[in-house]
C-alpha cells in the first residue's frame, strides 16, 4: 500500500519553513525519508523506527507517530540546496515480525527561491 504524501509541491523563499507529511493506511514498522535532485539518485536523509520518535539532521528533522501511521518532515530556515523531490518510504509490519521492504510515496516537489 503506497503511502500518501502531502503537499504534492511547495514553493518557498530561502529562509522559510516547510512541512511534508506522509501517511499510511497500514501499520508501519519504519519510515524512511529520501531527497532526490533532478537527474540524480535518491539520497538518504533519515529513518524513524519507533512511534513518536523524532530525529534531526542539521535543520531537517522528522517525527513518526506510529499510532496515527504518520510521519512529518520539517525543513527549517530552508536553503537553496534543499530544493528537490522528497520521498517517504514505508515498511509494513509482517505477520511474523520484521519488515518487508520500502514502498515509496509519490514524492513532494520542493522549490526554494532566493
Amino acid at each position, binding site marked *: 500500500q503506497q503511502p500518501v504524501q502531502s503537499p504534492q509541491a511547495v514553493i518557498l523563499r530561502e529562509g522559510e519553513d516547510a512541512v511534508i507529511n506522509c501517511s499510511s493506511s497500514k501499520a508501519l*514498522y*519504519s519510515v*524512511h525519508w*529520501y531527497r*532526490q535532485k533532478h537527474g*540524480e*539518485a*535518491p*539520497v*538518504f536523509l533519515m*529513518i524513524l*523506527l519507533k512511534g513518536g520518535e523524532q530525529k534531526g539532521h542539521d535543520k531537517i528533522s522528522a517525527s513518526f507517530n506510529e499510532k496515527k501511521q504518520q510521519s512529518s518532515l520539517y525543513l527549517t530556515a530552508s536553503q537553496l540546496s534543499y530544493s528537490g*523531490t522528497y*520521498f517517504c518510504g514505508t*515498511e509494513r509490519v509482517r505477520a511474523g515480525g*520484521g*519488515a*518487508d*521492504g*520500502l*514502498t*515509496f510515496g*509519490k*514524492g513532494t516537489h520542493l522549490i526554494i527561491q532566493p
Partner: protein
Amino acid sequence: DTAVSQTPKYLVTQMGNDKSIKCEQNLGHDTMYWYKQDSKKFLKIMFSYNNKELIINETVPNRFSPKSPDKAHLNLHINSLELGDSAVYFCASSQAASFPNEQFFGPGTRLTVL
C-alpha cells in the same frame, strides 16, 4: 570510490529486444534492490536480493529477471522490451533486509524503448 555503480548509464533500444543492466556495490552490504522510476517520478521497488535469495518480488512482468552472481552484484535482465518499460532503473543496496537500514542508490540507468 563509487559505492553503488550501474552500467550502462543510458540504454536506447528497439521494442522486442533483450537487454541487461549491471549493478555492483562495494559496501559489503547483504541486500540489493532494483527500483523503477517512471516519467511521473514514481519510485517503485521491483526486486530485492538478500544473500543471493530473492526476498521481495513485486508484481512485475516475468520478462524482468534479476540475477545475482555474488553478493556484490545484482543484474537486471529484461526480455522482449516494451514501450512501457522506458524509465530510469535504480539499483540500491543496504546492510540487511531484516532490520531497517539506509539504502544507497546507484546513479540510475535511463532506458528508452523505441
